[in-house]
């Protein structure tokens, strides 16, 4: 009797949970959840804890060491100075090109593939290519010199510009693909309706396409910013890793693997995460003020 009562009680609980969307099928989430917990959350919190346990000094000593050393704090500015323009260039360059690519024309598939190909180059080939091509004796400078445009070779590698070019080359394909997808999700009849009402292409773009595209632009900006913000290999290879392109990931890496100060390294990693998430939060905050309804398209 009692066991029957327990069983019906358990059944009732299960039934009530199922009504709220909780049942045994949710166990399928467990592997992924456990995985993220053990391999992402735990190390992250461990690092957070480690950053408050410096080898010497108070619990904030690692952060103090970072924020009082101008050479270290400067890395935040160095990183933002690279990542923000790179993300902006990628998004702004991708919009007109993707806009042109909306219609159907011969060779569209080939052109799309060509624009996406830089993904395969990887940071190292890009770095090597930039050093070869833009270097003082590279083809680019040879052309400039032989046409008489400049008298001395332009210095474009081993400084800020080399890293910026590398970020644009590797980030552009992603921005382009995303924006092409967003644009093809906008119903073209909306623009045609505006054209019927006498709007020229400038007005159509400003009043119709841009407002519908803006949320997509914000998302694309965030994703390319994430890519550019974690710049590490190219800052070392084509940049000037001791000077103007000493980005924050280099500072974190050096603290961990050259000075073996894991507390400082974790503190720098946390600062890095905070700065990046701060920028993303700002962009998403702005995005939340935008129209987010249907774009009327297939997307």
């Amino acid at each position, binding site marked *: 009797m009692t066991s029957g009562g327990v069983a019906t009680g358990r059944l009732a609980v299960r039934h009530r949970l199922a009504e709220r969307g909780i049942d045994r099928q949710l166990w399928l989430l467990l592997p992924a959840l456990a995985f993220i917990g053990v391999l992402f959350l735990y190390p992250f919190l461990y690092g957070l804890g480690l950053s408050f346990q410096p080898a010497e000094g108070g619990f904030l000593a690692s952060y103090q060491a970072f924020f009082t050393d101008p050479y270290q704090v400067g890395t935040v500015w160095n990183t933002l100075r690279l990542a923000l323009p790179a993300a902006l260039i990628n998004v702004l360059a991708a919009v007109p090109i993707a806009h042109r690519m909306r219609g159907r024309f011969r060779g569209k598939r080939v052109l799309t593939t060509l624009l996406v190909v830089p993904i395969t180059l990887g940071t190292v080939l890009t770095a090597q290519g930039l050093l070869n*091509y833009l270097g003082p004796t590279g083809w680019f400078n040879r052309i400039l010199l032989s046409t008489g445009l400049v008298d001395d070779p332009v210095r474009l590698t081993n400084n800020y510009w080399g890293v910026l070019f590398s970020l644009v080359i590797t980030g552009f394909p992603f921005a382009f693909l995303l924006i092409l997808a967003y644009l*093809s999700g906008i119903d073209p009849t909306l623009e045609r309706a505006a054209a019927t009402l006498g709007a020229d292409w400038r007005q159509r773009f400003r009043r119709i396409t841009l407002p519908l595209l803006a949320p997509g632009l914000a*998302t694309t900006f965030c994703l390319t910013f994430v890519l550019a913000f974690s710049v590490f290999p190219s800052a070392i290879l084509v940049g000037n890793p001791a000077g103007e392109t000493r980005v924050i990931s280099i500072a974190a890496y050096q603290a961990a693997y050259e000075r073996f100060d894991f507390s400082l390294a974790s503190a720098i990693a946390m600062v890095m995460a905070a700065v990046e998430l701060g920028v993303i939060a700002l962009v998403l905050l702005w995005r939340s003020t935008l129209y987010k309804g249907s774009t009327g398209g297939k997307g």
Partner: protein
Amino acid sequence: MSGLLETPTRPVPPSERHAQGAPRHRLVASPAAWLVWGAVVFFFVNLAGIVGSVLVSSFGTRWFGTWLPEGFTTDWYGSAWEDFNLLQVVLVTLQVSLLVVLLSVLIGAPAAYVLARRAFPGKRLLMLLFLLPVLMPPITYGIPLATVLYKYGLAGSVSGVVIANLVPSVPFVILTMTPFIEQINPTIESAARMCGASTRALFSRILAPLLVPGILAAAIIVLVRTVGMFELTFLTAGPTSQTLVVKLFTAMSAAGIRAQQGVDAMAVIYTTTMLVLLVVALRYVNPTQLVARVREAPED
């Protein structure tokens, strides 16, 4: 360039005309179009210069301050293969990426199924949790993760590299597969249930065959990402567990010891591998579909 192709001198095939609705007739491309295509051409010319200079250099003998190298040779490929022990590196790269693909699909696909089909309390929070590893720069969680892996003696081995690479891959599989699963009509599952299929039969006989394209898409993207993933592998790899990218980076940052052309040759090998992967990927994956997930993904 291609803006000119919109001119009506070329007859538009009926199928194309139908699909587009009203074909656009424009005799001359507008100045804006010229500007855009000009910029694209400029980008490609420079890109060709960048790739071409590496390619030429990897086949060149001596190249100092001239337009082209003095002579051409294929020796660098052979010596790079020997010097950098590339056979082992390529084998490790293959091993790591295949393991990462397999494990991330096994872990991610069931979660993607639940997230696509069900509504439950805390779903938003869970989505955010799965999104975080994709949004964070790899270095930020890579350094603490490497520290933890070193603590448990896992770093420096192939398994450590696989574990580290799984962290962004599992969320990626979830984010890619969720829209795929949403496209499958749930009434098919209900019908199978009505015919008495158990959950296991439902997965193996109904869902798995329907999901093959989605699994392939996710697997290929994860493969491309893992082969190209530098930071996490760099932080966790030991001397015998380096993948191609990491080997390439260490070879290049230690430049001066070896000839530049050997590194060029290795970079060409790497890019060719990635190019093959990407072409295969584009056959199975529609980029537009890929991106649709990002739309709702972040924030509120």
